[in-house]
């Protein structure tokens, strides 16, 4: 997998098509995000499969957005899995990135990872490495729905009570790009409390994920309290799909989120 990606990136860098490539690199015995700018650096490029497939993924799109803001004229390449590609498309549709300035290099995730992520589409439209795996249903959502109303509340309150308010779910999120964040507004959610107002803090974030969350799961991995945030946002994505036939990042990037435009009324 690494070699095919390296070859592609080498070609892109050598041709001068891209200024740099956002990928992952083994550095000082750890794996982290890295902006490759020379074909010579590519020896240590990795795709983020350390012990298990996809166990060292980083929000490369987010880093790309931040850099593109400072250098809007430059073209960058970026390593994308299925989720990352959904992220790019969503960022295009919210006008946070210019698609003409981005060259994605795709990889397909193996079945094991697709199932662990419960990913509907574990591959980008185009990819240079890996094989198409089957999409997987949202089992975690169904598990919560099998509980009584009372047990659901108990479950979530119990999970949210662990929140240490690191804002990591937001800070790692590739589609959280707002300049001002409701989560920080004392009028809505009292600042300074630990845990933050339960369940208001997390429900507020969940609502803001509607029409945006691309189900990459990085929030879940960044959560110091192991709160199953991904399950919560998967449900939000299901609701949006059911009401408006829209899933962020699956369709044409020109298509706007139903919560970004007036459009048609919801079904329910």
């Amino acid at each position, binding site marked *: 997998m690494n070699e095919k990606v390296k070859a592609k990136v080498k070609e892109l860098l050598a041709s001068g098509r891209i*200024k*740099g490539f956002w990928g992952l690199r083994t*550095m*000082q*015995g*750890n*794996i*982290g*995000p*890295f*902006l490759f700018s020379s074909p010579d650096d590519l020896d240590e490029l990795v795709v983020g499969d*350390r012990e298990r497939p996809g*166990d*060292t*993924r*980083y*929000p490369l799109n987010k*880093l790309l957005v*931040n*850099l593109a803001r*400072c*250098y809007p004229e*430059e073209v960058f390449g970026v390593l994308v899995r299925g989720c990352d590609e959904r992220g790019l498309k969503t960022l295009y549709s919210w006008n946070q990135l210019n698609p003409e300035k981005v060259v994605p290099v795709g990889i397909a995730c193996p079945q094991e990872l697709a199932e662990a992520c419960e990913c509907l589409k574990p591959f980008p439209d185009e990819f240079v490495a890996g094989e198409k795996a089957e999409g997987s249903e949202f089992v975690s959502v169904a598990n919560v729905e099998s509980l009584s109303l009372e047990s659901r509340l108990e479950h979530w309150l119990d999970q949210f009570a662990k929140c*240490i*308010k*690191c*804002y*990591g779910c937001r*800070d*790692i999120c590739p589609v959280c790009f707002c300049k001002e964040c409701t989560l920080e507004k004392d009028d809505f959610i009292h600042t300074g409390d630990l845990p933050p107002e339960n369940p208001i803090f997390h429900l507020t974030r969940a609502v803001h994920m509607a029409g945006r969350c691309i189900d990459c799961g990085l929030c879940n*991995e*960044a*959560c*110091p309290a192991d709160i199953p945030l991904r399950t919560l946002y998967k449900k939000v994505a299901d609701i949006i799909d059911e009401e408006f036939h829209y899933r962020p990042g699956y369709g044409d990037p020109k298509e706007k989120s139903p919560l970004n435009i007036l459009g048609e009324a919801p079904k329910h």
Partner: protein
Amino acid sequence: MDYRTVLTTCAYCGCGCGLYLEVLDGRVVNTIPCKTTPVNEGKLCVKGWNIHEFIHSPNRLTRPLIRKNGALTEASWEEALDYTAGRLWEIKEKHGSDSLAFLASAKVTNEENYLIQKFARAAVGTNNVDHCARL
């Protein structure tokens, strides 16, 4: 455009979380938790996530200061270092090694703490070295 990610260790509490500092054109602009460091495995607390913010604070000290006529006044390194070493030497000569004392720091590196106590012990000749381990 000079962009780098630098792996380092958080400087807040004693957990010792690994994180990448994003450096753009000489400024630290962001923090990303490292996925493979053993303590934090890709997670951080709110302090860690924002650790880049104080680095470029306008309140940082950027020049040596010497008290002149009662007020702290900017000075060159040459002047400040000579003055510091000179005054410490005078006090040692006049009042003895144990009239000097040193507070090392739980914030600076091991190597720096080592040099502070080495200076106190080997150069000045006192064991009056402590730090806020108790606080």
